[in-house]
């Protein structure tokens, strides 16, 4: 096959996969949340939407394509029109480097996971563009929150990312998968948890849904968008949710690794999608079950809890890893007890510190109410 044809085909597949999987995932999300709220969700009563309303998303997509595109008066036309394109482009670019199998990957640059981190600001800038160009209070508020939240959560995300990178000794996503004789989540539960929380904040899912808090600020930064322009924000949101789930599965759950994958390479994508789907389901369960945190609470959790914890974990894992290596534990499996022990110690210390500080805060509250009584 000529090279150009191969490139074109690869790009086409990489473009089609997210859209097709998102059509299914939107249905899954709606069903899951409906069940959690004791509803049926999309179903085929009345209209024909296929068994279990499987084609509901397709029908919605066609409907949304026929809707009018409204550009508000006074909006900055070009920036307003460019924002949906940028957000969708940023969401799709991540798929280029996700390893679906031992040899199945759009591209394996030596900066690998760093590329995924670098793409994030473009999604942020799409939000800023949408919020700025709309000339709408709610859009501007959503943008302020999005900027504050995403910039601060990048830090614990990157710090907890550094730990698997350190154990692997490479930034390439393929090498990160190959290094996981044990899935990293079993070796590094705390960094995996930090990464999961930071990534939930990064895609703005509950409990970190401040950028589009629909009970307070309509739809946040994309309040003014209609028709397919709104559709592309919606699609990008779900593509982002799924691609961060895939990245999490790649980093901490062993990626395409699984039984019989070496005999039948076609199983690689199956395992990866299954694992990614599990992570996605957790995100959706959060969506259905969590309350929305206030913006100051979100930022406090980040700066006073997640970032210091990630820093401590980075230092501790670096030391323990080196120590275990010097004691003769050269494979990841041999170092697993050491690393798990370190995680346990840090976890217990964190819980202890949190309880201490909450007791102190309780004392302070008690003292204040006592003073109020005396007055």
């Amino acid at each position: 096959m000529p090279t150009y044809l191969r490139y074109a085909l690869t790009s086409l597949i990489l473009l089609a996969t997210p859209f097709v999987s998102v059509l299914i995932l939107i249905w899954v999300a709606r069903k899951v949340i409906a069940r959690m709220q004791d509803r049926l969700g999309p179903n085929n009563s009345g209209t024909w939407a296929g068994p279990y309303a499987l084609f509901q998303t397709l029908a919605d997509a066609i409907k949304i394509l026929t809707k009018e595109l409204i550009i508000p008066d006074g909006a900055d036309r070009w920036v307003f029109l460019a924002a949906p394109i940028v957000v969708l482009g940023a969401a799709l670019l991540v798929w280029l480097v996700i390893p679906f199998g031992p040899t199945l990957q759009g591209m394996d640059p030596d900066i690998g996971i760093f590329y995924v981190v670098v793409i994030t600001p473009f999604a942020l800038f799409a939000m800023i563009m949408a919020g700025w160009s709309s000339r709408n209070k709610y859009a501007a508020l959503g943008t302020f929150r999005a900027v504050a939240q995403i910039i601060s959560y990048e830090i614990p995300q990157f710090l907890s990312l550094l730990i698997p990178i350190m154990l692997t000794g490479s930034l390439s996503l393929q090498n990160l998968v190959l290094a996981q004789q044990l899935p990293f989540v079993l070796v590094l539960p705390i960094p995996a948890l930090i990464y999961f929380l930071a990534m939930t904040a990064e895609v703005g899912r509950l409990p970190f849904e401040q950028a589009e808090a629909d009970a307070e600020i309509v739809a946040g930064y994309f309040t003014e968008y209609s028709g397919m322009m709104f559709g592309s924000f919606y699609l990008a949101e779900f593509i982002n949710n799924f691609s961060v789930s895939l990245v999490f599965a790649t980093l901490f759950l062993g990626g395409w690794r699984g039984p019989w994958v070496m005999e039948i390479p076609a199983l690689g994508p199956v395992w990866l999608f299954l694992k990614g789907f599990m992570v996605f389901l957790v995100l959706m369960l959060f969506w259905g079950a969590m309350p929305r945190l206030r913006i100051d609470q979100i930022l406090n959790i980040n700066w006073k809890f997640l970032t210091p914890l990630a820093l401590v974990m980075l230092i501790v894992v670096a030391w323990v890893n080196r120590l275990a290596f010097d004691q003769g534990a050269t494979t990841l499996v041999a170092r697993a007890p050491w690393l798990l022990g370190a995680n346990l110690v840090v976890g217990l210390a964190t819980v202890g510190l949190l309880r201490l500080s909450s007791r102190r805060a309780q004392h302070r509250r008690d003292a204040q109410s006592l003073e109020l009584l005396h007055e």
Partner: protein
Amino acid sequence: MSFGFEQIAFLLTAVLTVAAALAMVFSRQVFHAILLMIAVFAGVATLYVLLGVSFMAGMQLFIYVGGVSVLAVIAIMVTRGFMGSDRPRPARTTYGAAIVAGSVFLGLAWLILRVPWPTAPLVAASENDLALLGQVLVSRSGFVVPFELSSLLLFVVLLGALYIARER
């Protein structure tokens, strides 16, 4: 000179980058200028990719798009009023800036044309230059002292910023 894919890609990127840079300079709105500046950064990163140094490209985007541009946007947000500020930026200093930029450009062009550039690479490109870079940065025979000193400098800057920003 063969006119293959790389030349076409380079020319396209270069033209787009220069166009974005010119549009940035001539745009009257600060926010447009920032967006065009991001386009310029992305163009420069593409040039790095074409040269085969993807780590530099990643760093370019990480620092300039993820850091500097976001900082600029935050500066707009907290100072100028994020919504509906159509105040054009002042044009007083345009001519002075044009003279400075033009003379810097001419000086650099003169320098580039005068230097006898080596045609063969001075150092052979290694297989895994990213790992090599990391080792050089933290090895005792390499650049560990400047590396650590720069981190110390950044730490002092951070403390200074905190001291200035602290409410008293």
